[in-house]
């Protein structure tokens, strides 16, 4: 037993006594049995709790409907949107978008619909320009990519064919065997 309150039970012991005197040490139990002051403290707590119970009971309405064993469809409270319907709609919309995306995703982005990779657009435009508009003819000529008509003599002059030598292949003489057969 605590000695903090002139030998009386302290708050902890009063609470213990209230919850069950069995948990109190024998000395405290004896004191409680003999001391009217400690008993009054315990009774104050009991009264307060009894009052709480009585008020709670008085200020609680009774049920008005009997219990039935049929599950009723619960109406949505006023002001609350039909949550299930909203969720169902959202799921349907998500499925529709997924299907459209999976099947015709290229349609969405073809011709004016934008591209899937907008960051490569400038590069592809440049490549297309190069394919459609090759280098001017003069430049192509310089790099020998394009033959200009009537230049055979010029080439022959710049790089003549080797002279005919005995025992050399006919091809070396400038005769073209397949030319005879096919021309």
């Amino acid at each position, binding site marked *: 037993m605590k000695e903090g309150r002139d030998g009386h039970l302290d708050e902890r012991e009063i609470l213990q006594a209230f919850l069950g005197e069995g948990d109190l040490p024998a000395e405290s139990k004896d004191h409680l049995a003999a001391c009217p002051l400690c008993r009054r403290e315990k009774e104050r707590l009991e009264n307060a709790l009894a009052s709480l119970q009585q008020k709670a009971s008085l200020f609680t309405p009774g*049920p008005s409907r009997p219990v039935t064993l049929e599950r009723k469809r619960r109406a949505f409270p006023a002001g609350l949107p039909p949550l299930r319907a909203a969720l169902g709609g959202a799921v349907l919309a998500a499925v529709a978008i997924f299907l459209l995306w999976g099947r015709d995703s290229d349609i969405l982005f073809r011709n004016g619909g934008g591209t899937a990779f907008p960051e490569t657009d400038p590069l592809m435009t440049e490549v297309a320009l190069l394919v459609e508009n090759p280098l001017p003819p003069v430049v192509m000529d310089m790099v020998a990519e394009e033959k200009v008509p009537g230049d055979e003599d010029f080439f022959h002059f710049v790089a003549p064919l080797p002279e005919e030598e005995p025992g050399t292949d006919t091809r070396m003489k400038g005769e073209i065997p397949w030319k005879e057969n096919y021309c």
Partner: protein
Amino acid sequence: MAPNRQPEPAPRPGGGHETADLVLEARQGGQGAFVRLAEMYREEIYRMVYYRTRSPMDAEDLTQDIFLRAFERIGGLRDGDAFRSWLFRIAVNRVTDFQRQKRVLSWLGLAPRKREDEALPEGTAEPEAPLYLEKKEFWENFQKFVKRLSPMEREVFILRFLDHLDIAAIARVLGKKDSTVKTHLYRGLEKFRREEAFMEFGAFQATRAGESITKQGTEEEKP
């Protein structure tokens, strides 16, 4: 006043034996037996829900739902004598789910408008107005008090002092040890003693309304 005025468990409407027999019958598919059980415990469960929601409409809906759940699961109840704690366990879980749902809806901004069923109805007779105000004040004070308790302290406190369950039954309902329940109850009581609520409820007996309650309490105790 009697030296030990701890709350006694609420009297069982039909007695323990009757409950156990009805549970046995209901387990074998007897719908009538379950309806009888529901009649016996309906008010107790309704009150239990009301103490936690303080909305008569929610209490009605949840009570109905709790009994439906109990009906669906009664096949799994082995001990008929444990029906009351088993039913309270279902009720506590259902109310917890409901409050969680409500919090989520409120967070999403979908919470239903506050019901006005606690408001003083128009045309209420003059003498009833003070009682209404007293009721309002009581629940506001109670709410203030329980907000200071941890969730477990709150549940244990309400189960013990408002629902009248003993410590062993509370332990069964919450799936805790008796010692754990006692610890939470002790902490709850400690806070109760320190609160203004203690003084208010303690002093309540002296008021006029207190006299009427005491009178009613005495009448209720009569068989």
